[in-house]
């Protein structure tokens, strides 16, 4: 027992070493949607360039913007377009993601018109029977304020966030998916990437088309799908050499397979 204690103490003390030098270290913060892709890309890059260390952190798109602006991070990750007041930054598009409506797999409805969507989300239509589905109160799920998916949805429907009459508000995409999977009468809108993977692996949800356009990655790639959001990296004017090198790597097709495993559409070809 005493030996074990001494050993752990030694290990712990050795871990209290000096931090590594900053020159070859990159810090990237931002959207938790983009983070897994960039983290995997960083691991690959580090294998190619062993002297570089890249740390990817989450915290949301606005974290990415703030940190890139203030210099706390070398680059930011965002899952939306830049807004006014953020134009000092340059956005580099990595991939496109679509936002689609999902319902439960057993729900007979498989297409919506834009007006129907607006009616559902403003509370004017409240029963599936009015839309040709079974009889049941529609369980409307909407995303929380500030989310890119919400803003894109509002942009498409022309609504204001105060107009939405939701029964539940969800945060992450998985939350929305599990809500719909657990309730036959639920409706929600999520990222196509997230919904597609889940639906393929058997979760009881169904991606439905809007105005007849099917929500597939092909449609997003072709540009025919109307509701999309960009997954981007933002940098400010002072980007170090190391950062620029990694950014260039991110823009190459070398990481397209990483993007595609998440069912997003890569921009680089």
């Amino acid at each position, binding site marked *: 027992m005493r030996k074990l204690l001494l050993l752990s103490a030694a290990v712990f003390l050795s871990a209290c070493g000096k931090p590594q030098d900053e020159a070859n270290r990159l810090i990237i913060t931002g959207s938790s949607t983009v983070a897994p892709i960039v983290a995997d890309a960083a691991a690959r890059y580090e294998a190619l360039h062993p002297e570089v260390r890249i*740390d990817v952190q989450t915290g949301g798109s606005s974290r990415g913007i703030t940190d890139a602006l203030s210099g706390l991070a070398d680059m930011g990750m965002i899952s939306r377009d830049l807004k006014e007041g953020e134009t000092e930054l340059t956005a580099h598009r990595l991939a496109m993601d679509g936002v689609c409506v999902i319902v439960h797999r057993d729900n007979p409805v498989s297409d919506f018109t834009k007006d129907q969507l607006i009616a559902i989300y403003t509370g004017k239509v409240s029963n599936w029977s009015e839309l040709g589905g079974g009889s049941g109160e529609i369980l409307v799920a909407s995303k929380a304020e500030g989310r890119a998916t919400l803003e894109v949805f509002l942009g498409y429907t022309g609504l204001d966030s105060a107009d939405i009459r939701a029964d539940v508000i969800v945060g992450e995409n998985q939350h929305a998916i599990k809500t719909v999977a657990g309730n036959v009468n639920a409706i929600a809108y999520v990222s196509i990437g997230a919904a597609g993977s889940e639906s393929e692996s058997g979760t009881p949800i169904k991606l439905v088309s809007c105005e007849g356009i099917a929500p597939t990655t092909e449609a997003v790639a072709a540009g025919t799908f109307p509701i999309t959001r960009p997954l981007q990296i933002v940098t400010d004017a002072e980007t170090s050499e190391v950062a620029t090198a990694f950014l260039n790597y991110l823009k190459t097709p070398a990481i397209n397979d990483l993007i595609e*495993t998440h069912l997003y559409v890569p921009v680089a070809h």
Partner: protein
Amino acid sequence: MASSFLTPSTTKTRRAQIGDWLIGGAGALASFVTLGALTWLLFDLIRLGLPHLSFEFLTGDMKSAGREGGIGPIIISTLLILGCCLLSAIPLGVGCALWLSEYVQRGSRVARAITGGVDLLASVPSIVFGLFGMTFFCQFLGLGFSILSGGLTLTCMVLPILVRTTLSAMNALPPDLRPAAGALGLTKATMLGQILLPAALPGIMIGITLGVGRALAETAALLFTSGYATRWPETIHDSGRAISVHIYDLAMNIPNGGEKASASALVLLLMIFAVNLVATLLADRWLKTRSLS
């Protein structure tokens, strides 16, 4: 265990026997409901996660955002974060409680102020601790995204538990211990170290158990302080993903991450057992080296 003195044969009257059955029944029911819920939860975790547990999983590197590969670096990061937390929280928490219990007048302004401060600390929401940790430890103290930042933030969260449980343990000590020590001519420090602390140790261990549980279960605070990195940590100044953060990412952010999330959750539960076991063994050992055992 007190039950040995209270075997049913001591309950003579009919009314007492009915009372006994009622309370015992209520207690058993409560235990049953709790354990039932826990078993249900574990069942789902085991069903999804057990197939993925393997030596490679426990020691290997992470691949494909966690859907493949192992969680070796994550386990090490978690243990380091826990280490930082406990090494600062236990002296602070137990020390504070000892001072309050032995060196200050009960109900005095100083005692009220410090207890109030600790209680207020307990009511800070975990996500607010995340923001605090990020602003104070990462930015203000310049520690950046690091295991140390995460551990110190956890210290703030675990501190009230340790203080409260140690205080309870000290208050529950038999009242004749302190006068007896005084009568023997022991100095206060000796009384504290040789008599009171060993006697209060079981209660303090409960506090440590709860604290370890709290630390390992915490997600939001660690996401903002020790971060998201999945590399093998070299020092505590490195960013390192805690296992709870990993479970969160897999469950909520990565499509089809559910099974690996369950497997990681099982590993976390095993870690709880292991850490508590080590803590109990250490405490027993320490007791044996004291005059009281």
